[in-house]
């Protein structure tokens, strides 16, 4: 943080094009390569369908896959909200009692590195299998741990000097919490949210592989795959990926609005 004054630059159209061009080219190149490989090596369509065929099926099945995707996305978002709220609440509660927090953190970190998704069949038994609940609970668990862990870190890893200053102002603990600890934890929490968006779509889809109502994306994918309808399965996977990206970008937009001051926001167009 040295040198001259910097001001926030609005990305011009030219820099935006230059920024996104490589990704665009690689995307188009990748699709073209896939198409060519399938045709040239005459790969069986049930092993790997051509992108053009997936696209055609996608258009034909648009209504089905999109409504299935929306159901699953809603489940993911619902579970995400539960997990995020629970994770933040738990972090805030334990921040009052460092002993509980420090005793709990190793377990949280340990659980976080286990495949929570493995609980899906159990959740299917605990909650009505055709309802939103079993999947949402798996999603909530998957999101809960990273959010809680990061929130705890953000709340507690405040630089000593920042706290000493507040002390020197004779600040009450609640002022320290609201004016320093919580704002300091925002970047940590948002980084967990961003990881959580991807995880929540994965968890929602995979938990549906273990059963559920037929209108869901995961059930659709596993049934189409079982029937050797691979292009349909791929079209649905496309919807899942798209949902993940949309969810991620939505969180990024909220992040930008909430923390315009953060380092990650400084060079929006990249350099």
């Amino acid at each position, binding site marked *: *943080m*040295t*040198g*001259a*004054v*910097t*001001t*926030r630059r609005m990305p011009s159209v030219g820099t935006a094009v230059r920024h996104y061009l490589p990704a665009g080219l690689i995307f188009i190149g990748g699709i073209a390569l896939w198409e060519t490989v399938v045709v040239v090596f005459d790969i069986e369509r049930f092993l790997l369908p051509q992108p053009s065929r997936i696209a055609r099926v996608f258009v034909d099945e648009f209504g089905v896959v999109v409504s299935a995707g929306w159901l699953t996305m809603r489940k993911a978002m619902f579970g995400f909200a539960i997990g995020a709220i629970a994770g933040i609440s738990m972090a805030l509660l334990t921040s009052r009692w460092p002993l509980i927090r420090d005793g709990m953190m190793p377990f949280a970190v340990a659980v976080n590195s286990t495949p929570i998704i493995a609980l899906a069949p159990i959740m299917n038994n605990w909650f009505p299998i055709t309802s939103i609940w079993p999947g949402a609970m798996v999603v909530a668990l998957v999101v809960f741990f990273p959010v809680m862990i990061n929130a705890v870190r953000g709340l507690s890893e405040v*630089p000593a*000097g*920042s706290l*000493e*200053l*507040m*002390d*020197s*102002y*004779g*600040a*009450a603990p609640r*002022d320290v919490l609201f*004016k*320093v600890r919580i*704002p*300091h934890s*925002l970047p940590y929490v948002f980084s967990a949210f961003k990881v959580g968006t991807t995880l929540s779509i994965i968890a929602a889809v995979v938990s549906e592989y273990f059963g559920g109502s037929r209108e869901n994306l995961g059930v659709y994918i596993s049934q189409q795959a079982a029937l050797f309808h691979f292009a349909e399965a791929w079209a649905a996977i496309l919807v899942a990926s798209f949902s993940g990206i949309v969810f991620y970008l939505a969180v990024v937009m909220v992040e930008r609005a909430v*923390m*315009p*001051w*953060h*380092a990650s926001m*400084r060079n929006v167009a990249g350099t």
Partner: protein
Amino acid sequence: MTSAVAIAAVDKVFNPGSTDQVEALRGIDLTVAPGEFISLLGPSGCGKSTLLRIVGDLVTPTTGTVAVNGKTAPQARKDRDYGIVFQQATLYEWRTVVRNVELPLEVMGRGKEEREQRARAMLDLVQLTEFAAHFPYQLSGGMQQRVAIARALSFEPSILLMDEPFGALDEMTRERMQAEVLRIWAQTGTTVVFVTHSIPEAVFLSSRVVVMSARPGRIAGIVDIDLPQPRDEVTREHPRFYEKLTEVREILRSVDRS
């Protein structure tokens, strides 16, 4: 008149009884009069920061007493007698410049109007008026340090504690900041305790320089700097300025030899 700071027989031992025990300070006696500008000078590790932090109630002394404006240090802290500036600006990055300056006033429950007015006045004082709405990352190191000073002054603390506030600055900025601090000091009449390891800085700024020796930290000598006030660039060429530099340097050297 009660003294601004009265330190009597203060010792500080960190981690007593363990293998990493450090005797940071031994037998410190020091009195600072209201409105004085006093510098703590000495080699690295001699306990300057520790002494400053004891005055500011961020560290408690192992033995001895500290009185600030006739009160205990914790009481003085509760009464908001201290403005503190560290070597790092320690701005809150999620607050704009003006809201950083307002923070202490906010914590102290002052009204919005008063906060805004005080913050404006302080930013004028450190000549950062146009940067009020900027975030800290948009400022240079020297500007950030000026915000930290404005913030420390915003609630008119009776004592300003500064720990190497200009350590990270280049020579030019540093001299400008020194002039600025002197101007602010003259304008506000606060008591300043200033930590530095630059001899010219200590002599230029202070009414008295406290020279410390290391391991354990002790006061090796106190030099009265009777240079004329207000001080400016001419002061740095004053013959007495050189005499004082030499006097301080000699105490430091004798400390080094023992």
